[in-house]
């Protein structure tokens, strides 16, 4: 059943009524927000819980690089090196700036899509994907450096918590890059007209969330001693 509240403040014959000037089609939902967009926000709210768990786990174990006694006299891990012993703050700062810049290019792409500047939108989306790939490259370099220095996934509980947290974030960035590439491809094939510009905004929400999570990780994991 559709909502029965009558609003006579707008003329349905207005050609701009069902689609505003940045391409948002107003669907007859109870919330006034499209189901896709609301679904993305609910998903992001649940992602807060998942990343909250991973960040808490790292905070708990970062100063406890002990092993786990899985049976009497049998311990897993126990290496003394902590992830924080190997952090390269200048390098990680550069990758953080890169991810921050990708958020700017993403929001510029969303604005361009809303104004029906599809060529410009594709350029900004391409820039966002490139910056994301640069960030992932930095993370791969960091991980390989750590492993070379003797800090592997099972070295101790602190390293397990660190690799799980930052690895999960990296996977999210990678998925975001794939979403961006698919969006560009769909746009090139004409499957994202101005009336569906909200699709770009929804991809943008995911991308900004990934950036927001990195803002938390960078401070909590890397900077707070």
């Amino acid at each position, binding site marked *: 059943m559709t909502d029965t509240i*009558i*609003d*006579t403040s*707008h*003329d*349905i014959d*207005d050609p701009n*009524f069902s689609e*505003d*000037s*940045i391409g*948002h089609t*107003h*669907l*007859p939902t109870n*919330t*006034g*927000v499209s189901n896709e967009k*609301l679904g993305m*926000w*609910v998903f*992001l*709210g*649940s992602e*807060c*819980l998942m*990343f*909250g*768990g991973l960040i*808490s786990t790292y905070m*708990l174990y*970062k*100063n*406890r*690089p*002990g*092993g786990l*006694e899985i049976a009497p006299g049998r311990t897993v891990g126990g290496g003394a090196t902590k992830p924080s012993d190997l952090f390269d703050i*200048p390098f990680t*700062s550069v990758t*953080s*700036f890169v991810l*921050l810049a990708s*958020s700017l290019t993403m*929001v*510029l792409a969303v*604005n361009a899509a*809303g104004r029906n500047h599809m060529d410009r939108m594709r350029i900004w989306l391409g820039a966002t994907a490139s910056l994301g790939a640069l960030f992932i490259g930095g993370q791969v370099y960091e991980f390989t450096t750590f492993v070379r220095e003797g800090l592997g996934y099972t070295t101790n*509980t602190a390293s397990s918590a660190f690799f799980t947290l930052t690895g999960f974030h990296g996977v999210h960035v990678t998925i975001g890059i794939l979403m961006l590439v698919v969006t560009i491809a769909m746009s090139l094939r004409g499957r994202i007209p101005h009336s569906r510009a909200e699709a770009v905004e929804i991809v943008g929400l995911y991308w*900004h*969330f990934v*950036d927001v999570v990195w*803002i*938390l990780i*960078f*401070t*909590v994991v890397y*900077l*707070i*001693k």
Partner: protein
Amino acid sequence: MAAVTASESHGAGDHADHHPSDLTYWKVFFALVALTALEVSTYWWPEEWHKVTAVLLIVMMLIKFGAVAMYFMHLKSDALILRRVFFFGMVLAVAVYIAALGAMVFFHDSGNAVQGRTGFDYPPREKPLPPPATDPPPIIRETTGGH
């Protein structure tokens, strides 16, 4: 049919009017860059300032978080329900995990007091536990074999 539902009642250009311009996004970005630079600089601040530094870092982190969520994710101009959905998840996550960290004695000297331990055996016991109780030895009755 001229009647429309309340949910359709956004006027033309509502979002366009509310969404910031490109210039605003650039301004927010440069503010974020400046804050990040300040954050990074704290890494080289004297060790004695670590408590002040930690508080300052958390404040700057929250400002950055808010700026990205409000401006880049359009929470400032979008429907109120989106703000509620997102911040409900976030507040719930923070509350749950602060409670969990508290239960795992994280706030006891930031966990430093238990360096080298995994947390499962904290707080350390003052006396070792007695050995597990064992069943008493079975009574063996000797039989003489005579009737």
